[in-house]
């Protein structure tokens, strides 16, 4: 499965490096293009790692600002996407720590802000029972993810909800790929078994 990061950043590494250099020099257009390439990664990260009720947009904006102010710290060894997701992860951790909140994934359908987590489940299916079961399965998965240990939850979210590959997750979390694999396998096993057992 191609990673979302790869699919959403068709710009090559060379072009991206040029954008980074230009943004370091204060080029606003380059900075905007750079943010535009990776903004979905940051949105998804903040939305999945912050609890319901947290201001996701504010967190994303703060992530962008931190990234722009610290462009000189980006060495270019990894991808810019993983680097900016790392900033987002740290920001989410800071917020959770500061407010002493227990992270969990929103389960409620929130149609008013356009972030309905179950919006992908088709509601036009002629069989309402099937729709209800599908929504229940999605709720079940999100609930199981929210019950994972924090590191497993982060790894699972970055892999399946944000779309980073193993190297990207390792960079974002500051761990090695082997550690990511270990956490990911445990998380997948736990969530998959729970979801399958809950199915009728």
């Amino acid at each position: 499965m191609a990673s979302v990061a790869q699919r959403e950043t068709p710009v090559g590494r060379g072009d991206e490096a040029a954008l980074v250099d230009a943004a370091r020099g204060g080029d606003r257009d380059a900075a905007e293009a750079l943010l535009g390439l990776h903004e979905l990664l940051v949105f998804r990260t903040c939305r999945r790692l912050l609890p319901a009720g947290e201001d996701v947009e504010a967190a994303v904006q703060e992530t962008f600002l931190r990234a722009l102010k610290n462009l000189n710290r980006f060495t270019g060894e990894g991808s810019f996407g993983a680097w900016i997701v790392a900033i987002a992860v740290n920001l989410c951790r800071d917020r959770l720590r500061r407010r002493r909140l227990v992270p969990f994934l929103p389960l409620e359908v929130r149609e008013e802000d356009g972030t309905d987590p179950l919006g992908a489940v088709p509601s036009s299916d002629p069989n309402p029972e099937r729709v209800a079961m599908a929504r229940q399965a999605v709720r079940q998965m999100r609930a199981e993810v929210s019950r994972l240990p924090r590191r497993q939850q982060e790894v699972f979210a970055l892999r399946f909800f944000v779309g980073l590959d193993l190297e990207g997750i390792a960079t974002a979390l500051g761990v090695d790929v082997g550690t990511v694999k270990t956490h990911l396998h445990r998380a997948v096993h736990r969530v998959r078994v729970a979801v399958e057992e809950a199915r009728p």
Partner: protein
Amino acid sequence: MSILHLNDDELNLAVLGDDLPAEAAAHLGECLICRKRRDTFLALAEQARGADPDEATRARVREGALAAWGAPRQRHPMRWLAAAAAMIVVSLLPLVLHRKVEPPALNAETVLLEVNQVLERDPLSALASEEVVDTVVPVSYQSGERSVS
């Protein structure tokens, strides 16, 4: 086709897109049940991701960050207060650092001993300045070379 379905570990590997043992990979290619278990999990994860923000929201957040990044630094009233406090501290530094040096306590016995020694060597020094002493009593006299007057 092997009739044994994928075990948990193999199914996890399949979900993650990792390499499977050859026999398991061959089974997955032919077994609808195992493929459905894998695909169902992936589809659920896709749906659980939720909808992405619309372009208007993304643009608004992006613009907000860029504006904060490029905006000139705003002068905050607290900065003036801090500057004034710093000036006061700097101006008070000499006063704080200046300490009156207390003269060391004199040891009367030692002083008197020194005075006695000086007077023994040269009684006139107690009565006149060094210049006067030199004038009245030349150095040659002090050194024992008495001049013939």
